[in-house]
């Protein structure tokens, strides 16, 4: 009797697991959302180009370039690559590891500055 109950639990658990898998259906969303994102990507790219065209400089140039870049990247990953609709486990597994790259970038920026200063002092000597 006990084993039968166990079997039934397994069977129920399995049904739930299958229901949680929308494998056959996949990622189906209204076409309008893609068209909107598509248009937005064009707008952001045009703005990025205009930053260069109008010779913006300094902090303004940089903050705008980075902002448009992150917006474009975010929309591509979230909507076009469907990450917004994936489960949190997959989001974490894919989006968290690249964050360690920020440390690499920081270290290499410091290293580059150091090399630059070393070269300057070597040339000035």
């Amino acid at each position: 009797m006990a084993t039968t109950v166990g079997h039934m639990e397994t069977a129920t658990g399995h049904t739930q697991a299958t229901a949680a898998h929308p494998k056959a259906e996949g990622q189906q969303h209204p076409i309008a959302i893609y068209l909107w994102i598509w248009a937005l990507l064009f707008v952001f790219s045009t703005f990025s180009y205009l930053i260069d065209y109008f010779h913006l400089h300094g902090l303004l140039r940089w903050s705008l370039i980075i902002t448009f870049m992150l917006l474009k990247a975010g929309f591509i990953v979230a909507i076009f690559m469907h990450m917004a609709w994936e489960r949190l486990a997959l989001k974490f597994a894919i989006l968290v590891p690249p964050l360690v790259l920020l440390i690499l970038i920081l270290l290499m920026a410091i290293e580059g500055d150091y090399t630059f200063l070393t070269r300057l002092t070597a040339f000035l000597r």
Partner: protein
Amino acid sequence: MSESNVTPAEEPAAAPSGLTGVVSDWSGDKEAFHVPWGKAMMWIFLLSDTFIFTCFLTSYMNVRISTTVPWPNPSEVFALNIGGQHIPLILIAIMTMVLITSSGTMAMAVNYGYRRHRAYTAALMLITAGFGATFVGMQAFEWTKLITEGVRPWANPWGAPQFGSCFFMITGFHGLHVSAGVIYLSVVARRVWRGFYDQKGSYETVEITGLYWHFVDLVWVFIFAFFYLW
């Protein structure tokens, strides 16, 4: 309690050892990601590719910070004369638009795939591949122009010699990804056209192909910002 409709469960088998054990342990009903396995694998591949491209862009940043020679101005290097007008960075702007357009058509292809619209899916994928091929063609034009102007991986007429090595390495690797994507798209589009995924009962391969293609566009977003706009 009659269990006539309860299916008999399988006997719990003894855990196998050796290589079979490895396979059974890693696949033994312990699915972490509730997506088709191909999609999970594609994401993990793209994650590793992210690291590769970040290494390229980071090394580029490092040499650009550390050089004492002025860096060539990309706005001027990639300018074109169109109809007697000197337009800065125009080629790169067009290439960006081509790639974004191709990303849009790819998203449409995935959508029509899940609607089981075979002809639209195949056609949209081929259009995507066509835009990809256009992009590679424009890149070939850009390389030819720069090489005839004297840009080499070790030297160029305008400034820091590292410009050439960074340029050829980063855009070359990205161009290879686009070329591979064009082939990948063509193969899958052919299968869509022949009804392979209707027989299989799932169009998830189209979405997985789309993931790769959108990633190629994604990488270009970063190259555009850091290499061309800096």
